[in-house]
């Protein structure tokens, strides 16, 4: 009964174009933010941080980035893993070359560098569409992994070919390196995700987002209306790259601490993030969060149920997990092709009328 539009009038266009026009939604959003910032840091432990929360936060940033490109602008990309690697290696080079500069700045600059690289790989999109573009970005994926493997300058000529994040602090607290506390890892990722989410939402609700969606829905009509396809597509690639680069930088420096490009940023990563946005919902910021949560939580949940609950062999559970996740994705795509975000929308619409169905 709480969830009602009635009595909740927008009196200005400004009020009507805000992110959460319904009061209840707005308060729920504030409550979630408050919980994430004021409660979780005090109760978090290593298991929750490493298995669930930190990967969720980082993947959510990547999913937002990819959703801008695929969901909003309609340009398919299979290069996410490679683009995250660009962010990670940019961050590594910056951290080791300028140790005195704050890691926060390094992460943002890594995003900028990734944006530039992704824009270059986005140039073919001006000529090709759909599957052909997917293949072009797939080439980017393999090329970038090969590049970071082969050119020793990128990993500072280390014997193992790995990159290792040195210890860095923010406001006196360690955020990278093996001795980092769980809450610090969580907080830095949360700050980046919150800012990324707000920026992405602002860009997608205004003129820029409409430009992207126009290109996605009908590029010819968009051009005749006055959208320059060149700037619209390349800006989507750049902004998508910015967020993906930040997530790559955080994934390496805060979450893993050490990375080997082929293992961490391979083609599986591209598909993982793509699954996240497809399951979460294309063209929806909330969908990016939901998809990331789904893909991160599901394996953890299955493991807990199969190994912890039913007492199965770990190896057997690990293999079954692949089967179940795969099957669930297929079921999902058939039952609700518009993803969790659409389920959420339908639920809200139902809730608005509840308890009277008509």
């Amino acid at each position, binding site marked *: 009964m709480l969830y009602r539009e009635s009595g909740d009038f927008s009196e200005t266009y400004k009020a009507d174009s805000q992110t959460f026009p319904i009061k209840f939604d707005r308060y729920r959003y504030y409550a979630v933010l408050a919980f994430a910032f004021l409660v979780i840091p005090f109760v978090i432990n290593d298991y929750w941080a490493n298995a669930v929360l930190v990967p969720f936060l980082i993947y959510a940033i990547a999913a937002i980035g990819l959703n801008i490109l695929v969901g909003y602008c309609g340009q398919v990309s299979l290069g996410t893993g490679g683009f995250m690697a660009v962010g990670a290696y940019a961050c590594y080079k910056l951290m080791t070359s300028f140790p005195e500069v704050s890691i926060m700045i390094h992460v943002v600059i890594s995003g900028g560098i990734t944006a530039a690289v992704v824009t270059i790989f986005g140039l073919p999109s001006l000529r090709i569409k759909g599957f052909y573009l997917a293949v072009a970005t797939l080439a980017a994926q393999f090329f970038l992994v090969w590049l970071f493997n082969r050119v020793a300058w990128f990993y500072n000529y280390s014997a193992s070919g790995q990159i290792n994040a040195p210890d860095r602090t923010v406001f006196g607290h360690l955020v990278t390196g093996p001795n980092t506390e769980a809450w610090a890892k969580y907080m830095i990722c949360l700050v980046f995700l919150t800012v990324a989410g707000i920026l992405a939402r602002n860009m997608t609700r*205004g003129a820029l987002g409409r430009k992207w*969606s126009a290109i996605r829905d009908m590029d010819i009509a968009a051009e005749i*209306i006055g959208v320059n396809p060149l700037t619209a597509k390349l800006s989507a690639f750049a902004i998508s790259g910015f967020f993906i680069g930040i997530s790559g930088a955080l994934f390496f420096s805060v979450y893993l601490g050490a990375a080997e490009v082929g293992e961490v940023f391979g083609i599986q990563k591209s598909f993982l993030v793509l699954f996240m946005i497809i399951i979460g919902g294309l063209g929806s910021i909330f969908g990016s969060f939901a998809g990331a949560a789904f893909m991160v939580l599901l394996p953890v949940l299955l493991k807990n149920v199969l190994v912890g609950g039913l007492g199965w062999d770990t190896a057997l559970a690990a293999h079954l997990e692949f089967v179940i996740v795969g099957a669930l994705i297929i079921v999902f795509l058939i039952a609700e092709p518009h993803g969790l975000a659409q389920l959420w929308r339908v639920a809200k619409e139902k809730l608005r009328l509840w308890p009277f169905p008509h």
Partner: protein
Amino acid sequence: MFDQAESFVTPDGRTIGAVMMEMKNITLRFGGVVAIKDISFDVREGEIRAIIGPNGAGKSSMLNVISGFYHPQEGEVWYKGARRPEMKPFEVARQGIARTFQNIALFEGMSVLDNVMTGRLNHMKTGILSQAIWYGKAEREETENRAVVERVIDFLEIQHIRKTPVSRLPYGLKKRVELARALAADPKLLLLDEPMAGMNVEEKEDMSRFILDVNDEFGTTIVLIEHDMGVVMDLSDRVVVMDYGKKIGDGPPDEVRNNQAVIDAYLGVAHD
């Protein structure tokens, strides 16, 4: 016909302004097929100019030439007293030319409001950074343009479907939303490609009224392609008749109606 005088009064008592756009000897070929052959005509400020002709006469190709989608091999397009260089469609749009399509070309994934707001894109200039920050410049611009869009929505009487996804609308309303999107751009010249195709009588009457109102209230010059002769003869000030890529008639509706070449080629005797 009419001379190049600054303005004149039509038999209906409507005042038509000076020449706004002039097509000079346009020829358009696709490989060996000649779609438009050496056609010249002008469009005057404030008039409703119809282009008619049987299927495949090259009418839509002509609109596509005007909106920069096709580039003619020969001939010149003059717009507002200057020769227009070869332009991309989005550059043409920025000159104040908007259009609708024969097969509705709305953005199906967006709401009606968002669709009409895309029509304002040429009036929205904030950079990416201020849009990401939103508060301040971007929000102000959004609100200003929203006000303009709401006037158009009001004008075309589509307030009730403002937030509805376009994909859920029936055909007639989609056509109206498409007109709204074109109007939101504040065009000087509006190109309508079969605005009444597939409509019933009532919807046609509505659409005709909207077209006349647009012309009347905003002073928008309109070029339209239409197959319904009754509508064309009622609405338009002057008519160009095309057949097989050639111009076979040009003038006020009454003159065209009595032109023997036009009757032979198009109107025929079967209608009477």
